[in-house]
């Protein structure tokens, strides 16, 4: 197995980020797109924590705390918008949300 190095953590972070990006690009369900965005934010958090550990400085942890707070706000607002759209149009399908396109 060998020793776990910084590259392992960053590699995992990259893989998770691109899984999230794939979700954002390919899914039509707004709920799953929101969850994919959370996944991408978490991948970035992991990279921050790994670099903080590597250089022995906790500044990275402070940034992660900021990201977690922003992610919480983003989830709350995003889900509120989603509930509002669902109430008006009975859909969470992104391809049906074309009001600005008509």
């Amino acid at each position: 197995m060998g020793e776990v190095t910084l590259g392992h953590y960053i590699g995992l972070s990259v893989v998770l980020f691109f899984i999230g990006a794939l979700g954002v690009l390919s899914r039509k369900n707004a709920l799953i797109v929101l969850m994919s965005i959370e996944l991408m934010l978490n991948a970035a958090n992991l990279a921050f924590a790994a670099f903080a550990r590597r250089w022995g400085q906790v500044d990275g942890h402070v940034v992660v705390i900021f990201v977690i707070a922003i992610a919480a706000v983003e989830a709350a607002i995003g889900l509120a918008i989603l509930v509002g759209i669902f109430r008006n149009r009975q859909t969470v399908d992104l391809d049906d949300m074309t009001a600005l396109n008509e």
Partner: protein
Amino acid sequence: MDAVLFWILAGLSVVGGLVVITGRNPLASALALGLVLIAIAGLFAMLSAHLLFILQLLVYAGAIIVLIVFVIMLLDLDDRRLGEMKIRWGRFGVSAAICLVACVAVLRGVRGLTGLREPVHASFGTVTDVSRLLFGPYLVQFEILGLILLVGILGAVVLAKRGG
């Protein structure tokens, strides 16, 4: 021991992530996302980020997952609507190819990153350690964060009350 734990957590998070983006039922995706978040909390603990470990479990695996599950149940999507949420494999395939190429390119770039300097001081990543920065050099940003949270709460309430 560390390596075994890392690979278990890494495998859990990658498999969970794939379930999140391929799941047909949003509830299954939400639970898989919870698994990923808990695995990442474990990785935070391995990186001796004590405060982040607790915050990840409380805020992410606790609050955000509960919020998402709550909204999924509120929307109460029936089988007919879930049927319309099938993955379009054509679009998925093209996106997957692009992501795979980009992922491999970045991974080649980070391959040279080595070393995880072993001896960090004993208090690294504890509440005291992080707070000293959070309420010192980062105080202004921290206060702005409070403002953003307040605006977020107001926005969510206004959005959820209106309409219908």
